[in-house]
């Protein structure tokens, strides 16, 4: 048998099930959102790293022009500081999609698919290893080539041999950039199949694992030693690069996502805290009269406090029982979805206890702390006041200027306002200002976060637009070597629909650091710089764009300066072109990502220093129409035209495709933002419903009074619904303003993490209106249900309600 006071706690908890449900739901939605974000963040940061480590990622890659054999691989493996080495053949081929379009495809040839030692590739579906004269396609690449397993596709090798080859299955190769991101699919064949394409046996790509792969400087030294050895063995090295230890191919985007999740986690934490504080505060206000009675019959502060602490702890436990399991399920679903964008399988979904401990701390400790504030304030008033103040007169409307204003006495249009319920609703809203403030803080935070999520999404899209608009053309064609610029330009202009052409030259280059180490491959793009140039200035983060009379000026991506601390705006940069080192001056940085850094320099200058005057290896074409179908048809016509005149096109891209690919790299972030928007709408919405429903429940007696003096049920409900809408609209308006700094902060942080500069700011009107609709709907729903329930009671029951 319990003490009498615990019966009260038990009966309060389970006697008023609606109230308990509302309180528990309000608390659990905040905890649920927090759980999802914290857990998914942990799963992604740790699970992806673990999955990446499982493929034994290489410390670096060395590519050769000439082919090498197993003996050379063995000689690299026997090097002192090389832990492991493996090799492949890497071939840039072309594949024809179902729609007839030719796309680039990278074909890997591996000698023994069951003994891949570095950058491991695994079977995803179909036979393993790939059967002779059949190909396995990387699983993320099937959609890019618009094909299915079992389809036969036409593949064209650089030696012009075309073969129809069946897709036997799919492979899983997480060491590569996901195909949808860079637009290049990957295929895997055996050397027998390679032979069938008329190519000879041999490797051209070496993957090296250093003895201490976690030490980047060391790994770099080892990769350089391997490169030196290869050069001494007579191989030409067009590319050698060292990987960031443990970083998966889209690390910048992953870091952006983790950062975003961290920031949204903090916002959800505050939202959750205010939901809990608001809910508990509402509960204690409701119980104030009973606290007074218990004091009157001899209850001490500690005894009464103990009862309410146990009560709020029970609410916390119930909320956690809902929030934790749903949070885990949600976090695993979200993590899997996001991992899909990175083309990763997450092997471990384990969650560290800290995630749960934070939820438990907030779910249990916070309500206790939250209840102390209103409880201690209730101690300041006497028991007599506590008992007498629980009545119609609670709240202190009428004492300050806001109340005077809302009373309408001094405003002519309010004096004549015939809609009494509007006046009553507005005045009711401001009656309990402490509660209103707490409710508004909670809802404003929810509104601001929701709108900010939409703003970040819009800003991402805006940023992509800014990136794409640098290219004032529709089609970019890359040739297998340099041709006379005049020849390709004039020839292209004969193709119907082509209105303007421009050329550039592109060269692979590498940064030479002060310690003589080399960076990974950097693409140098040298466009013509004159008023008719089809390359316009990208969005400049700092400094300036190229000028016609520039010689050795370069413009680099802003993120590049972060990755290479030696470099700075106005400083020198040493780049290796065709085996020779050249010093350039960094005159500007542009908004861009560093996944595959592109540096821009002047066409005239580059053609001079590389002895290619008057030549170009890339052509930009502007069409009279820009719709995708027209541009795609023109692209095929241009390819056919150049084939006929003996100019070999190695790569084609359209601005439409570039946009799709640029957007694809943000897909994961956009998807996350959408999930977060839905989650926050859920949290904010249920929070709004819970808070308002508790507010209405608390005033059940008042509903009785309104009905006793003749108000019809509909009239009573409309007063409370309007009050809900007034609160909802206020939180929406304040959230819309607060969203400006929040989204700027998110844009700044996300942009810095992914591209080195803030995203192009954009305020989402769509988000603003969406949330307005949600807020109004929820306000109506939240106020209507309890008001309708109260209006169903008899007047006597309502007046006796406590």
């Amino acid at each position, binding site marked *: 048998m319990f003490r009498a006071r615990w019966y009260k706690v038990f009966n309060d908890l389970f006697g008023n099930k609606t109230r308990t449900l509302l309180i528990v739901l309000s608390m659990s939605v905040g905890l649920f959102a927090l759980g999802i974000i914290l857990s998914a963040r942990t799963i992604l940061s740790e699970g992806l790293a673990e999955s990446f480590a499982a493929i034994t990622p290489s410390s670096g890659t060395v590519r050769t022009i000439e082919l090498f054999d197993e003996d050379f691989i063995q000689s690299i493996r026997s090097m002192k500081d090389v832990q492991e080495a493996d090799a492949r053949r890497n071939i840039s081929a072309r594949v024809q999609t179902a729609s007839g379009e030719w796309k680039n495809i990278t074909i890997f040839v591996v000698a023994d698919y069951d003994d891949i030692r570095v950058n491991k590739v695994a079977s995803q579906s179909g036979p393993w290893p790939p059967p002779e004269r059949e190909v396995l396609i990387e699983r993320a690449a099937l959609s890019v080539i618009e094909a299915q397993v079992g389809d036969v596709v036409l593949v064209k090798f650089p030696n012009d041999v075309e073969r129809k080859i069946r897709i036997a299955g799919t492979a899983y190769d997480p060491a590569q950039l996901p195909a949808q991101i860079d637009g290049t699919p990957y295929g895997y064949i055996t050397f027998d199949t390679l032979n069938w394409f008329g190519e000879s046996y041999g490797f051209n790509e070496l993957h090296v694992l250093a003895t201490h792969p976690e030490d980047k400087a060391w790994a770099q030294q080892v990769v350089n030693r391997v490169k030196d050895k290869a050069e001494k063995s007579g191989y030409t090295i067009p590319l050698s690069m060292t990987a960031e230890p443990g970083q998966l191919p889209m690390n910048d985007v992953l870091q952006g996502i983790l950062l975003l999740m961290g920031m949204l986690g903090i916002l959800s934490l505050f939202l959750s805290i205010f939901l809990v504080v608001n809910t508990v505060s509402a509960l204690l206000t409701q119980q104030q009269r009973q606290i007074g009675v*218990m004091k009157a019959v001899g209850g001490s502060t500690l005894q009464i406090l103990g009862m309410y602490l146990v009560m709020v702890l029970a609410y916390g436990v119930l909320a956690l029982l809902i929030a934790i399991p749903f949070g885990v399920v949600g976090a695993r679903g979200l993590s899997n979805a996001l991992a899909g964008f990175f083309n990763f399988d997450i092997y471990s979904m384990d969650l560290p206890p800290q995630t749960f401990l934070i939820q438990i701390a907030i779910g249990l400790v916070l309500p206790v702390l939250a209840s102390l504030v209103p409880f201690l304030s209730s101690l300041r008033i006497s028991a007599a006041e506590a008992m007498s103040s629980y009545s119609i007169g609670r709240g202190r409307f009428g004492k300050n200027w806001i109340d005077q204003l809302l009373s309408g006495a001094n405003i002519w249009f309010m004096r004549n306002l015939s809609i009494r319920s509007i006046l009553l609703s507005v005045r009711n809203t401001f009656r309990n200002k402490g509660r209103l403030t707490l409710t508004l803080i909670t809802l404003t935070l929810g509104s601001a976060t929701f709108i900010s999520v939409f703003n970040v999404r819009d800003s991402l899209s805006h940023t992509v637009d800014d990136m794409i608009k640098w290219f004032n053309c529709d089609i970019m064609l890359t040739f297998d070597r340099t041709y006379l610029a005049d020849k390709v330009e004039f020839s292209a202009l004969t193709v119907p629909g082509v209105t303007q052409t421009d050329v550039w030259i592109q060269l692979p280059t590498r940064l030479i650091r002060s310690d003589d180490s080399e960076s990974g491959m950097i693409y140098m793009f040298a466009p013509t710089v004159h008023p008719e140039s089809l390359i316009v200035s990208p969005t400049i983060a700092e400094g300036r764009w190229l000028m016609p009379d520039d010689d050795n000026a370069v413009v680099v991506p802003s993120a590049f300066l972060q990755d290479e601390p030696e470099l700075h705006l106005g400083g020198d940069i040493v780049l290796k072109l065709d085996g020779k080192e050249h010093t350039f001056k960094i005159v500007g940085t542009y908004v861009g990502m560093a996944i595959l850094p592109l540096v821009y320099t002047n066409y005239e200058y580059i053609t001079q220093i590389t002895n290619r005057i008057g030549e170009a290896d890339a052509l930009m074409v502007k069409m009279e129409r820009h719709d995708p179908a027209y541009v795609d048809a023109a692209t095929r016509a241009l390819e056919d035209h150049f084939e006929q005149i003996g100019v070999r096109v190695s790569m084609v891209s359209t601005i439409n495709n570039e946009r799709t690919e640029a957007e694809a790299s943000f897909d994961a972030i956009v998807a996350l933002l959408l999930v977060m928007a839905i989650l926050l709408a859920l949290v904010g919405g249920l929070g709004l419903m819970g808070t308002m429903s508790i507010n209405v429940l608390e005033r059940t007696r008042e509903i009785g009074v309104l009905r006793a003096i003749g108000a019809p049920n509909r009239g009573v409900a409309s007063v409370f619904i309007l009050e809900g809408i007034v609160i909802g609209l206020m939180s929406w308006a304040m959230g819309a303003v607060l969203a400006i700094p929040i989204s700027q902060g998110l844009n700044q942080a996300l942009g810095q993490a992914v591209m080195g500069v803030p995203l192009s700011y954009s305020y989402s009107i769509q988000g603003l209106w969406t949330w307005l609709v949600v807020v109004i709907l929820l306000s109506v729903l939240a106020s209507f249900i309890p008001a309708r329930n109260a209006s169903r009671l008899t007047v006597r029951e309502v007046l006796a309600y406590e």
Partner: protein
Amino acid sequence: MNSSTANPLIELRSVVKVYNSTADSVTALNGIDLQIFPGEFLVVTGKSGSGKTTLVNMVTGLDRSTSGEIWVDSEPLHKFGSERAAKLRGRTMGVVFQSFELLPTLTVLQNVMLPMDFAGRASRSEQRKRAMNLLEQVDIADHAKKLPTALSGGQQQRLSIARAMANNPAILVADEPTGSLDSATANAVVDIFKKLAQEGKTIFLVTHDKDIAKRGSRMITLSDGQIVG
């Protein structure tokens, strides 16, 4: 009990209570001097707004006086904070309110047991036994397992008296205990107080009903916060 030979159980010396609001201040009690002796059945009467309920709040320590001294069972209640006042109340007095002030989520029996639980004086089985005895004394033992809302107004007030008696206090303070009841029920409730006074309890009862006022052993009348008769 002879008032001249015993010490007063409750003594008020120059008690003043002023309520301040933003508009103005109201003096609810204006220099009250009053002695109440053990076994007395004191009835305080007066018109609405005369300060009767304020006087109850002062005597019970439910509110603090603006100035003056209040002694209860030789203890200076006017110096006590709400915590000590609650303990003194739990030990020495029971309070009965016009609107009963029962806890709606506790049963009739649990409502009576609650003050004993707070006082921590008896074991749970003894609390239960004593609570049942008290409910029998006020004739509502049959309703012990019901919630207060299931009782009539008279029964709720009987329950309120039983709860006030839970810790066997020397003093019973009742603020308009018959205000919400019909005359027959009101008389029955006053009978209970009368019987308790005969058993030695000190009763401090506030009413505006003159017939009920006559049933006490002493009557004082309040007007504008002062004792006028």
